[in-house]
């Protein structure tokens, strides 16, 4: 199953690295980013996504790690906790999708894979944070453009882009 732009997103309840549970907000836009610890693309884009989370305080951001931690120990819940602690905290909760059900419901393909949801929970953008993981100056511009449109009550001009990154590591 894949969450297509224009479709309502499936809600979830997932724990963050502090043990608190999170779900989609009611009546507020949200950004769901499937990401992880071990992927260089996810790491390269992380600071840009975190900065966007700081810059849009009226939007709820969620980072979700769906990877199979058995085969990829760097993506274990403990490793997620250690990373957030080492960073001195994140401006968005880092959630563990141990069952991988949320990633499957959204059709997450890569880390990172970004979904922008409007206040009704409808997907308005899906894809990469911006055009180039190498260029920090891009500042997650595709994500920001989509958010600006959603907050203005408009359709994003760019509704879908090709996600770029490591494949989601599904359990076999």
């Amino acid at each position, binding site marked *: 199953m894949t969450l297509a732009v224009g479709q309502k997103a499936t809600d979830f309840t997932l724990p963050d690295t502090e043990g608190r549970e999170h779900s989609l907000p009611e009546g507020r836009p949200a950004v769901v980013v499937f990401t992880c610890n*071990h*992927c260089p*693309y996810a*790491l*390269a884009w992380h600071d840009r996504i975190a900065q966007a989370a700081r810059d849009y305080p009226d939007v709820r951001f969620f980072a979700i790690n769906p990877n199979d931690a058995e085969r*990829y120990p760097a993506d274990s819940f403990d490793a997620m906790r250690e990373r957030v602690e080492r960073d001195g905290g994140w401006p968005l909760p880092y959630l563990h999708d141990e069952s991988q059900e949320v990633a499957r419901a959204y059709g997450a393909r890569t880390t990172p894979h970004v979904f922008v949801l409007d206040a009704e929970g409808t997907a308005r953008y899906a894809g990469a944070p911006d055009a180039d993981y*190498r260029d920090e100056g891009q500042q997650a511009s595709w994500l920001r453009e989509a958010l600006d449109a959603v907050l203005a009550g408009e359709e994003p001009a760019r509704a879908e882009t090709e996600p770029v*990154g*490591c*494949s989601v590591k599904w359990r076999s």
Partner: protein
Amino acid sequence: MRVELLWWEGCPSYPEAIAEVRDLMREEGLDPDALELREVETDEDAAAERFPGSPTIRVDGEDIVPPGGEEPHSLTCRVYRLRDGRYSPTPDPADVRAALRTAKETT
């Protein structure tokens, strides 16, 4: 001199890495067609090759950026640090060039 690039198709960085290594070999006066490409397809292959992730570049059998050894050998994307500290799915070209030059000098 033997230059090998080990790659896994699940990580999208290998075409960029192959192009970069070939460009650097050309710039260093080496035959870019001599680059040996080896696909790593299974966890068993990864263990046998002591493959720390894709792409892995070896010059005369030595990894140009020796891995830390904390992660298991598996089918994964490899995390590199560029010389300015940024994360990258491919090594810093300066590290590749340095490995090629060192091997040239000792050959």
